[in-house]
Structures are given as C-alpha cells and as structure tokens.
C-alpha cells in the first residue's frame, strides 16, 4: 500500500498563490475557505530583511490529533495515509479545528457566492459536494487521485492522478507521491534536501515535508 505525501520546496515557492486558487477551483471552495494557503512573512531587521513564503494545508499526519478527538468518527485516516472527513458523519463540533496544530481545518458555514447576486453555475454544481455546518480541509484531492489510480495512472507522475495544487505550481515547488517508495521523486527529494516537518514537537508525524530554502 502506498502512503501518499508531499514535499514543498521553499527555495522554489514564489508566493504566487496558484496552489490556493487551483485548490479552490478543483474543490469548489466558497469565499473565506482555503484548504491550502500561503503564509507570507518577513524576518530580520532593516536593512537585513528577507521575505519568505510558507504554503500550509492539512499535513496528513500519521498521528493527527484531529482523528482522535473526533467524537463521531467523521475524520479518519485512509490506508494510503490520506486523512479525510465524512461530511455525512460530521456533527460540526469543531474539536478537530481546535486540536489541529496547523490550523488547517475550516468550518463550512454557509453556501456563499463570490459574486453579488446568486450562485454561478460552477458554484452551484461544486457546492453540492459540501455540507453546511461540517468541517473540511485538504484531502490531497483524494477523488482525483482515486480516479487516476483506477485508470492505471501513478499519483505524482501523471497529471490526472495528482492533486490540483501540485499541477498548478508554476515553479514545481510541490511534489506529490508515495512516501513508502524510496524511488519516488518525493521520497528522494526529502532525503537529498533534508526535508523537515512543521511542529515536530507535537509528534503528529506529518506526511507533508518542507525542503529548506
């Protein structure tokens, strides 16, 4: 069984937010919800200042606190490592949002449009996959990955089996693939570039690695 994960190259990220937008389009996310976001921050003091970017989304942890705290079992981890939310089971208590050290979860409060008057046809279509009141987050584009695998494609290699953010990144900063396969590009990058995880002290064992800038 594969274990899917991602490497994000902070040397390549230019803070263009293409991943955020591609994710919103792929998953039909309403205003105010970004399953993946790019933090933009400055460090140092004038004149030695540097601006950095940190793309953050669900880290698909091996031991994610969200899974344990969920009282209804809506949040669970698939055998392939992808953490998903079953919208039919979620009661909307938001304990997972409180428990996530990465603030990667969002409450889908209402079906709202980006435009003033009414839902656009794509919004109307896309929002049907969401449920008001439930909590949602990045699911590594699981439906897309699953559909691709069914066609015999390889996630991380073939466009149709790869998360939208990875496909959209113009600099190739995001690499997706099987962490259990030492020969996959993502595994090799994590080793060669000394990939690290966010908040290691939380012992959540994320499947998202960051390659230092």
């Amino acid at each position: 069984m594969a274990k899917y994960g991602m490497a994000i190259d902070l040397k390549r990220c230019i803070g263009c937010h293409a991943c955020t937008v591609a994710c919103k389009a792929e998953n039909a996310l309403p205003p105010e919800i970004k399953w993946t976001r790019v933090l933009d921050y400055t460090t140092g003091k004038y004149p030695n200042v540097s601006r950095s970017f940190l793309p953050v989304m669900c880290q698909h942890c091996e031991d994610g606190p969200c899974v344990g705290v969920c009282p209804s079992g809506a949040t669970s981890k698939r055998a392939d490592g992808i953490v998903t939310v079953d919208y039919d089971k979620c009661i909307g208590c938001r304990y997972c949002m409180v428990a996530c050290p990465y603030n990667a979860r969002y409450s889908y409060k209402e079906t709202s449009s980006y435009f003033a008057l009414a839902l656009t046809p794509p919004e109307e279509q896309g929002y049907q996959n969401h449920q008001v009141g439930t909590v949602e987050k990045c699911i590594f584009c699981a439906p897309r990955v699953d559909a691709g695998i069914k066609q015999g494609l390889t996630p991380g290699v073939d466009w149709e089996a790869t998360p939208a953010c990875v496909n959209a990144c113009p600099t190739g900063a995001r690499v997706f693939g099987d962490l259990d396969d030492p020969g996959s590009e993502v595994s090799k990058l994590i080793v060669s570039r000394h990939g690290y995880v966010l908040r290691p002290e939380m012992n959540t064992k994320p499947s998202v690695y960051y390659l230092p800038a």
Partner: protein
Amino acid sequence: MPLQVIWGGLIAWYLFLAGLGAGAYFGSALANYLGKEDKALTRIGIFFGAPLVLLASLLLITDLGVPLRFLGAFLRPGSSMISIGTFIISIFIIVGFIHIALLLFSGSKLSRGTEKALELIGMIFAVATALYTGVLLGVVKAIPFWNTPILPILFLVSALSTGVGLLILVRAIYRLARGAKDAQALASFRVMEKSDMVLIGVEALALLFLFVVMFGSTTGAAESAVFLLAGSYAVVFWFGVVVVGLILPLALEALSESGERTLSVTAISGIGIVSGICLLIGGLLLRYSILVAGLTRPLT
C-alpha cells in the same frame, strides 16, 4: 494578538452552566449527605443542578454545525474527550432528574439509604462533569495555554464556587420571601459562606499557579498569559474574573461573617444576593477569558 474564535461565546456559556449545575448539585447533595437540616439548602442545588446541565447541553447542541446530528457525539468514547464527556454529562442529567423526581413524588417515603446512595452517585458525576469541562480544553496539545492539568482543577473549583454562589443567591431570595418564619437561614449562610471563602482561596491559588506555569513555558503559552493580563481583554480578566469573581464575593462573605451579630438577617440576605451574582458573572467570564486566549503557536 488575535483571539481564538473557533469556540466562542456559546461554548463559554456551556462550560460555565455545566460547571454551575454540577457545583450547585454537589453543594446541596453534600449538605444533605452530611445531615444538614435546612431543607432549602439541601434541595436548591438538586432542583437547579440537572436542569442547568441540561440547558448547557442544549446550548452545546445549538453550537454544533449540524445540531440534529448530536447523537454522533457519543460514538468515540475510546478516543474523543467529547464522547467521554457526553456520556458523563448524560449520566449526570439522568441521575439528577431521577433525584428530582424522587424528591417530588415519593416525599417522606424516600428511605435515607436510597437518598444517600443517589447523592453519592450524583456527587461523583457532578465532580466528573465539572472536571470534564476543564479536561476538554486541557487535553488539547495544540493550544499550549489550555494544555495543562491545572485547567481541570481550576474549572472544578470554579464550578463548586459558582455552585455555592447559586445556592447563596437562591437561599437569600428564599429568605427574603419567607421573612421571619425562616429560622434556619442564618446557619446555612454561615456554612455556604465559609465553604465558598475556602473555594475562592483555592481558585485564586489555582489561577495564580496557572499563570506562573504559563509564564515559564516556552511553548507559546506565555503570549496567551500576557494577552489576558495586559492585552485587549485585560479589563475582562482583571475586573470581571479577579475583582467581580473573586475579590468582591470574598469581601462580601467576610463582611457577612464578621457581622454575624450586628447585621440583620435581611442585610445578610442582601449581601448574599450580591455576592452570589458576582460569583456567577466571574465564573462565566473566567471560561470566556480562557477560551479567547487559547491560541496555537504561529507557524512562521
């Protein structure tokens, strides 16, 4: 500093009312268990306890994203603190309402043994309910300001103190309504005020201990502590929690105790009403302050 907004005002009310109901029940049940004669003292908490906790639960359900699915909260008692707490609170509500029903309908036929057994079970689940409101936050590792065993202790002591506050408040109103026919009031005020002064002392120590530990922490909790003491909610904390919730009721209770011979029972009742209301306000604002100050560490 931004505020923690995932769990807001309704959750603060929930934590407060669940603790209040449990604390009031505990106070009355213990008084009866120890053989206190005053029927008002030994009954107020029983009649307010379970209904308040039920009200708290209804507020929690209202706060859910999908309220009609509230039964889903029971499904993972092996891992989710919410599921464990839902069971504890449900059992407390059931025991509490059985207790009310027995008091109302079996009257003097209720044997002392049955009553004591019921009180013991009720008190155990009252303590569990009050502790749970703190453990719910205390187990959240991602929020360093909450992630301490001091929090359940603080919430338990505050629950008992607000519970006694409610007993004092209702007992005082009852005394004013009954007038001179109410001979047991004075003795009951003594017991309630003395216990509450101890509780306030312990609560103040727990609060102090919480801040000392948080200031020493390197996990980001110190920022939450500074925010409460000096940030935009400092007024709520210092005035609401410390002055109104701790100092004022302590002073009023001390005044009432010291004026035992000089003050009229009516005056003591009046003081009781004010200190009771202060305790309730302080208890609610304590929950609210702790909630808003609970932030994860920034990732950058």
